[in-house]
């Protein structure tokens, strides 16, 4: 027998900030009221991006008014700041732990568990770690039953299962969320998650239906945009008739750069900023992009686990406003800085995989640049890592793509030849958001689903020879968040966009 359902309406009164904190002294306010005003002040700062000031306010509430009803909320704000903004999961965890220790029955406690789980999940794709994250998320409905955090906890657990590559369980969880909390703000994300799983198990139509569900008029723009991107990818690959090219080039708005050649690498950040590098410089694709880091000998571009641009400058990983990482390996008893690094990619936990234009194979470095050993001896000219931390490594000479898991174990290969395709001159590889692997040839793009049996090949894209978008000497490519493809072609001396 269920308890009477609780529909809790706005338990916390909202206060308008009528005066600043300084005028409090003139008012006869209780400690609770002061704490409340300070808390709201902090939230205002956070909304405006004044994080330092906001942090100050929340810290004051948490430390100076620990007895107030908002002390736990203040700690939660601090925790979320460190996790979402400052990229300091250790501090985020510390605050979350403090909430659970001191305020275990507060309304912030369930959210503290979410922080714990998200921290665990965000930096790993190892199954055992993801399972721990699931267990943490499951504490919320287990302990707190029917609180507002439950749908989000269930969603995050489903995401963890999906990332742990347990699709059936993930699907079941997403379905339960949709069935059980149909008006919760997390629902569009649950639909997206369902779509992702369906796409990964080969049900493209089912996936598209779910992505379209996520485009409800009440969804947030971040969700509707993501869903649109996914829909577009699937449309190109599975709905557009085979005789129609998956991508089209429009001469009117297809060129996105001036004369360029010898493009080594193109990359897009999750925020939509695009960059490319030649042997001499790193250039933004759009004027509005943030300036790239300064480099001497740029060889390639990558994005780190937080989606920030990283320039590979010989053996150094460089970022704007952050310390560079010098990549060196022990050779003959001495640390030798790698040179001629041609490709790099980052795991979720911040480790880097790096390959040089030599026979050293793929080296692994920690987030602080510490050499962790050889990831794989495979000769590699390009690296790409998908959301499961699976690694695709292009061996240009062998014209194959090897697939590894996060530990370096080979789990698959795309051979040079297979049903419906042949890799003649592969120059670059990239994953899209749905896990499709694209291989850039000089004159075409081939699409694979690496684990699909019996054949991983999906379809190929090429422009007709006479088309202004025809590929003749492609050198690098990348995808933006909408799934549009940018290809640098030395013959055209341009980077062109295909959609």
């Amino acid at each position, binding site marked *: *027998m*269920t*308890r*009477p*359902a*609780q*529909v*809790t*309406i*706005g*338990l916390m*009164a*909202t206060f308008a900030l009528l005066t600043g904190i300084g005028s409090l002294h003139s008012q006869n306010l209780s400690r609770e009221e002061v704490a409340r005003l300070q808390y709201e002040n902090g939230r205002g700062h956070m909304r405006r991006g004044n994080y330092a000031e906001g942090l100050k306010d929340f810290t004051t509430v948490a430390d100076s008014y620990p007895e107030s009803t908002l002390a736990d909320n203040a700690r939660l704000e601090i925790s979320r700041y460190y996790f979402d903004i400052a990229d300091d999961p250790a501090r985020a965890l510390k605050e979350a732990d403090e909430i659970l220790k001191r305020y275990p029955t507060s309304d912030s406690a369930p959210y503290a568990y979410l922080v714990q789980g998200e921290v665990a999940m965000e930096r790993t794709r190892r199954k055992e770690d993801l399972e721990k994250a699931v267990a943490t998320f499951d504490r919320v409905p287990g302990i707190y039953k*029917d609180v507002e955090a439950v749908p989000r906890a269930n969603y995050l657990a489903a995401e963890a299962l999906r990332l742990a590559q347990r699709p059936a369980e993930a*699907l*079941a969880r*997403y*379905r*339960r969320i*949709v*069935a*059980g*909390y*149909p*008006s919760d703000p997390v629902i569009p994300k649950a*639909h997206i998650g*369902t779509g992702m799983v369906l796409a990964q198990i080969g049900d493209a*139509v089912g996936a*598209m*239906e*779910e*992505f*379209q*569900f996520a*485009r*409800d*008029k009440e969804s947030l723009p971040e969700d509707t945009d993501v869903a*649109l*991107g996914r*829909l*577009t990818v699937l*449309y190109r690959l599975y*709905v*557009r*008739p085979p*005789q*129609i090219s998956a991508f089209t080039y429009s001469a009117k708005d297809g060129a996105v750069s001036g004369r360029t050649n010898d493009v080594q690498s193109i990359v897009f950040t999750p925020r939509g900023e695009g960059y490319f590098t030649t042997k001499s410089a790193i250039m933004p694709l759009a004027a509005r992009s943030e300036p790239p880091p300064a480099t001497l000998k740029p060889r390639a571009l990558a994005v780190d686990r937080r989606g920030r641009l990283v320039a590979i400058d010989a053996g150094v990983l460089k970022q704007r406003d952050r310390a560079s990482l010098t990549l060196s390996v022990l050779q003959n008893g001495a640390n030798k800085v790698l040179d001629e690094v041609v490709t790099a990619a980052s795991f979720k936990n911040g480790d880097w995989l790096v390959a040089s234009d030599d026979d050293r194979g793929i080296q692994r470095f920690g987030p602080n640049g510490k050499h962790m050993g050889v990831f794989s001896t495979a000769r590699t000219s390009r690296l790409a890592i998908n959301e499961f931390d699976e690694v695709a490594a292009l061996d240009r000479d062998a014209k194959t793509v090897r697939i590894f898991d996060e530990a370096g174990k080979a789990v698959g290969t795309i051979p040079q030849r297979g049903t419906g395709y042949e890799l003649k001159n592969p120059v670059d590889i990239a994953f899209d958001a749905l896990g499709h692997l694209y291989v850039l040839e000089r004159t075409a793009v081939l699409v694979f689903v690496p684990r699909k049996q019996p054949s991983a090949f999906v379809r190929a894209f090429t422009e007709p020879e006479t088309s202004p978008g025809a590929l003749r000497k492609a050198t690098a490519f990348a995808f933006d968040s*909408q*799934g*549009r493809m940018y290809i640098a072609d030395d013959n055209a001396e341009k980077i062109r966009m295909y*959609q």
Partner: protein
Amino acid sequence: MLKKFACINDARPRRRQPRHLGLLCAFGLAFQPSLALAQAPSQAPTAPAPAVNINASLLIDGMRFYDAARYPDAITSFSRAIDLLNAGDPQQRDLLARAYEYRARARYVVKDTVGTELDFTLLLRLRPDYQPAAEMSPRVLATFVDVKKKVVGEMSLRLSPPGELIVDGVSYTVGSEPLIMPVVAGEHTVAAKRRAYAPVEQKILVVAGETVPVAITLERTSATFIVRTAPEGVEVLFDGVPKGVTVKGTDRPDVSAPLVIQDLAKGTYVTRYQRECYRPLERPLEITQFADSELLEPIRLDPSVAKVTLRMSEPNATIYVDGVSKGSNAAEVTNVCEGEHLIDVRSPRGRFIDRRFWRTGDVETLNVVLRPAFAIVVNVPPAGVSATEFRNLVERGLAGARGALIFTPTEEELNAARRPDELSAEFFHGTSTAAALRRSETGDRVAARLGAQGIVAIESGGRPDSVQMTLLAAGSSEPEVLTFDLNDQTSRANAVTALTTDVPTILRLSIDALVVDVASVPGAVVVRATQGSGLVPGDVIVDVAGTSVTSVAELMARLNGQQGQSVPVTVRSAAGGATRSVSLVPRLVPDTIPLADRHLLYNGLLLRLAEALRETRTPVDATAARLNLAIVQMRLGRWGEAAGNLEQLRLPDGPGVSAGTVAYLLGLCYDAVGRRADAVASYTTASKSADSMLSLKGPRTAALAQEKLQLAGAPR
């Protein structure tokens, strides 16, 4: 009652007219029953003749004897009559006087002078004001007069102010002129008692043959006030003490009859004139002397009414004003008196309540929109707040909720409704099966008695100003709790929103194809289409009836309202980019309310969906209403009823909400009531329906059913 009858003479042969014909007729008129017996033997027998009638006949006999000059016989008859007649009886008294007169006259003839004088004495003692018959002979008359001089005196009575005087217990009216009253010589009592005057009583000795002047002047001891009002029916108060109510007058249609207020002492009074629906009037009144005073002009009260117009959404709803039924005709309710009133409109579907203070001259149109009404039956206020104040705050705070009316029944209604059933906060919160069953039955009963669609408990929410309101629709076993803060506008607004939320959409438009948005592809891209629809995967719908559409949302907006109609759309082919025209026939398909959504008030939805089911017009409306009613019933623990509704549904199999959906929901119902085998069968059916969805936005019921089967350990 006197009746007319034929005088005796008419029935007898003509002979010498007895001189006393008139007297006989008079006797006959007075004593009709006896004469009727003599007159008409054919008449129906009457009641036995009273004694006076017998005596009257003796008198008549005496008269005959007297007329026939048989004086001894006359004397004998008269004597017998005199013996029998009762002087104390007013009717017989006159007869007695007559008998004395005629016996005296008869005695005079037989030279019995003593007897004559004695008879006249007795006569005058009986009737001092007696006037003998006109035909009395002068000599007899002289004897009469002599006797009178010895027996009768007079009182000359004056009374100031004129009025009623009581002489020896008999009341006489004394006007402005003296009243000369013959009385038997001796002592007499003269008294005057009149309201507003001091009573007077005097003993007067009257000497025979003399006239004693008696002048009585009454002393006024209080004042009298006389007032008329317009209209009548006005209550008059003096210093707050009611003195009477004016009644309808006869001389002027709009003015009352005079109201006489007596026994007023001297002094200053505040007079108040009041009548319902009129503005009361107060005036000072000074009484300086004991006298009658009268207002020349009537006191006029001004009507104090407000004009109300009821705009009824339901013509058959019953209107109550202050608890009194006024029928269903809104035109009958046009005015309300100034003051606090409750206008209450009720129907089985809901209620409208307006409770306010009406001022004179207010003109208001009330749009009577009935809402499902929930009666407050349990009221547990916080400390320091009265129950009345608490419920007023809650009522006022939630007055804006369009989806439900929270109201307080009168004390009498509540006591009558609750009497056989014990209702407390625990009634609403018990979690056992027995408690749920009791809620379902008792709640239904109590709500019906109160003319409401549900019942409510309001309790303090533990924090200051916090309210915990538990709602239970009639027949529901699962109440829902709303908590809100009385002093927080946002919190109250959220509560109102929760009570106002419309029934979620239960019918949606379908074009039997899955269409999606694709970046850089203006239009709605077809991903899946039913055979025969004219669409194939990859097609892009680019316009509807000549108006371009760039997204799925625009497409559905253009098709909105066109269900059942053939709508031409332009489709760009996936293959070659050529366009063609296709006719789409959008149709309405059922969608489902979530089984558990914390933002929905299922107790309110129960009532509205039940009503929607009653009012459905098309089969798809009925299907959607019944399906969703079943879901709400499931949510509220009425599994049996839910199963009953689901079993009546016949949905085709296919994508969306379809047969598989119903099968899955039935499985849940059967599970809840312990029908394991039926549950497994239903889940099995649902698991085979690959495209069925729990709602049009998923999830697929096949997967949900398979989970259930796995839990049950049953094979898929």
